[in-house]
């Protein structure tokens, strides 16, 4: 049986840190970027940055699918509640600010907003209450989108539909390479997104951009080992795609999940809160499933919203330009209890991760 504790064994961590030190270039800053809120959690919670040499930096890209839902799409959910529709969603979407109110504030004013753990729970609710209209606000990257797809393609009750806010990760990674003065030297690719999409989507980064890329698991030693592998590539002037998380990620990903996504969705341009419009970065239900598309069913389309509140610097945090502690509002006006921006709301938001683990920050 696998000794799973090895994946977070501290002695092993220190051994990997020694290897990292040995292979790090003596001069110059080396910067790696991940795009997953759970990776930021592992890195911050286990204090991994304190194990790295001074000139190795790991920044967090837009890896929080809740944080990047534009205010306009929260406004759409709120508008639906005003039509008497029950909105169901995952817990951390509730406090994400819309242009006027969050779903939690709408709920406090009488809107029927319910948290679910799984989409299927929302479908069950709809079956039990056929007199009401139910909408599931589908948020998430490629880890979560296949689940929406499976449900959308199943035998859904007539009073159920989806408000789709899914986004795709590789376009966000490509965006980061275009951000001036970010100077990324390699990517730590997201383990569970990769479990779905496989390795092929990252070939763009190694082949075209010559960007070392390692798919990493989520235990602290997974992340440390991935950083080691990236540094080894940098020291050898290499640009390869490596899979550190082979116990979960297969090169072909999950073909069934990919097929379900293709059957249920088309890929369109999408708006990302704090970033703007990215081509080919969002999922939309196919026209054959229009009856389950809440925007079409209830004619709710909000084009623009107020993404960033005054003083908030989430738009700089989510592309890794600043660290949370560099935002003037961090842990002063903006706290987990009273968040100003989306990064402080979601459990995957960089600011919230730092706020909850700030004692271990170097």
């Amino acid at each position, binding site marked *: 049986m696998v000794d799973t504790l090895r994946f977070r064994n501290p002695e092993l961590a220190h051994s990997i840190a020694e290897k990292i030190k040995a292979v790090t270039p003596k001069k110059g800053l080396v910067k790696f970027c991940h795009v997953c809120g759970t990776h930021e959690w592992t890195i911050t919670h286990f204090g991994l940055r304190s194990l790295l040499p001074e000139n190795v930096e790991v920044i967090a890209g837009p890896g929080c699918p809740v944080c990047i839902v534009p205010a306009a799409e929260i406004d759409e959910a709120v508008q639906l509640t005003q039509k008497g529709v029950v909105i169901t969603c995952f817990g951390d979407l509730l406090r994400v600010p819309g242009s006027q109110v969050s779903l939690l504030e709408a709920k406090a004013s009488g809107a029927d907003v319910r948290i679910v753990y799984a989409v*299927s729970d929302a479908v069950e609710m709809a079956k039990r209450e056929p007199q009401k209209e139910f909408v599931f606000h589908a948020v998430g990257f490629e880890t979560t989108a296949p689940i929406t797809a499976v449900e959308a393609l199943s035998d859904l009750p007539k009073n159920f539909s989806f408000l789709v806010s899914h986004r795709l990760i590789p376009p966000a990674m490509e965006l980061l390479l275009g951000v001036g003065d970010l100077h990324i030297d390699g990517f730590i690719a997201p383990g569970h997104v990769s479990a779905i999409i496989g390795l092929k989507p990252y070939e763009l980064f190694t082949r075209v951009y010559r960007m070392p890329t390692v798919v990493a698991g*989520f235990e602290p030693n997974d992340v440390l080992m991935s950083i080691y592998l990236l540094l080894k590539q940098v020291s050898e002037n290499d640009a390869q795609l490596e899979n550190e998380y082979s*116990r979960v*990620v297969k090169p072909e990903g999950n073909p069934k999940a990919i097929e*379900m996504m293709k059957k249920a969705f088309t890929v369109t341009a999408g708006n990302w809160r704090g970033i703007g419009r990215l081509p080919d970065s969002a999922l939309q239900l196919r026209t054959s499933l229009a009856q389950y598309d809440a925007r079409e069913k209830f004619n709710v389309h909000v084009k623009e919203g107020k993404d960033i509140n005054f003083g908030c610097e989430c738009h700089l945090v989510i592309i890794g330009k600043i660290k949370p502690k560099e935002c003037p509002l961090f842990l002063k006006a903006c706290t987990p209890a009273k968040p100003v921006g989306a990064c402080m709301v979601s459990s995957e938001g960089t600011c919230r991760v730092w706020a909850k683990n700030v004692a271990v920050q170097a």
Partner: protein
Amino acid sequence: MCLAIPAKILRLEGTKAHVDFGQGVSREVNVSLVEAKVGEYVLVHAGYAIQVLEEKEALETLSLWNDVLAAGQE
């Protein structure tokens, strides 16, 4: 929401499986996205199994780490 937890399949019933997360926590999850057998481990995300966990691969990863750490230790 990349949070996904490994769980062992106890029973299979069509597209659903009863799984054990360890320490007495069990739940019904949807297994439409994977081909898994009773006794195997799956990665569960938001009520769905999204991938089968390979014990062989996990062991290989650990053995690979040992190799990496041993190299240059001469």
